[in-house]
């Protein structure tokens, strides 16, 4: 990273911050940019800013500072890419593949398996909408039309499914 200077964060502090926040920041940036490569670029720029200006951040709010800088970097990159409109129109699963370590790949596979089990336990009407949206990539409006349901019902079921899944995942994590 960089040599220790009195005015800047120490190398150990930078490494600790990177270890603690980089995964979440990368996911956040991917969600904003919808492009894995641009997200990696924005993450790098964010930590360059941390090296250069990290001392200006209140150490109690490093996380908030990092996310704010990351969002600004992401917006800048998106504008400069001249693909802003295109990027904003795509769902995050079209953001390309991320380079993962074997360990990360294994963890991801386990997470997907775990999630698959949880999906199977959802009520069938929620599971159907989730699969139509996520697997078949049908918009909620089209799902409502195809299933002859009000759009509000479709959204409510999807939201309920999401709530169940997130709460169960958080329970397992904790």
């Amino acid at each position, binding site marked *: 990273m960089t040599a220790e200077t009195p005015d800047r964060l120490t190398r150990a502090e930078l490494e600790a911050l990177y270890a603690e926040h980089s995964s979440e920041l990368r996911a956040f940036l991917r969600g904003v940019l919808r492009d894995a490569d641009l997200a990696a670029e924005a993450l790098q720029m964010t930590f360059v800013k941390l090296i250069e200006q990290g001392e200006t951040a209140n150490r109690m709010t490093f996380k908030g500072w990092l996310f704010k800088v990351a969002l600004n970097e992401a917006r800048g990159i998106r504008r400069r890419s001249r693909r802003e409109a295109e990027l904003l129109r795509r769902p995050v699963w079209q953001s390309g593949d991320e380079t993962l370590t074997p360990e990360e790949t294994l963890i991801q596979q386990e997470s997907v398996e775990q999630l*698959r089990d949880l999906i199977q336990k959802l009520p069938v009407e929620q599971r159907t909408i989730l699969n139509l949206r996520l697997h078949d990539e049908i918009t909620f409006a089209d799902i409502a039309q195809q299933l002859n349901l009000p759009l509000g019902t479709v959204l409510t079921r999807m939201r309920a499914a999401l709530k169940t899944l997130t709460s169960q995942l958080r329970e397992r994590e904790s």
Partner: protein
Amino acid sequence: MNQPQTLQPESTGSELDWLAFQYVTEQLPENQRDAFEEVLAGDLAACEAVAAMTVLALQLKQAATPEVSRPVRQAARSSSSRFGSWIAVGSTVVALGWLFMLMNGQDSNTQTSVGATQSEEAAGLIAGWAGSNQDEVLAEENLFDLETLDLNDESTPKIPGWMIAAVSLENAEEKMGDLMDEPVEMKEN
């Protein structure tokens, strides 16, 4: 487009998750998306929700299965494609039925030709037919489409004249007399 919720200042974790999920899956209309990005600039919880929903959406994309949604997709198919399927099935059944009838007709024709090599036997057979009920005769008639058969075509099974005469029940008696006087000329395949 859907009807996304607007972000309330007191949005709970669940509401933030839902908004973030719609944001990363591109289900928010443009104005709502821009408003949500403004919230991201000052709300760490909203940023965390985007990160969490990004991970979840990517994993859900892999975990979602087509098997579950197949029946629904089938149900959602347009009526025109269903109609097309029925036409295909119907055509196949008709073609098979026609083939079956043709093969049955060939068998019947072959058997009859062999059995009618002698005019006496043919006459006996005709006499038997004349005595049978009309339904049976009509059923036999259906085995041949006399209007479409090309009698000059060597590949087409030849129908003996006595058989054609035999199926005409109205003139069965008269035909029988004629046939007895003039032995039927049999054509072997």
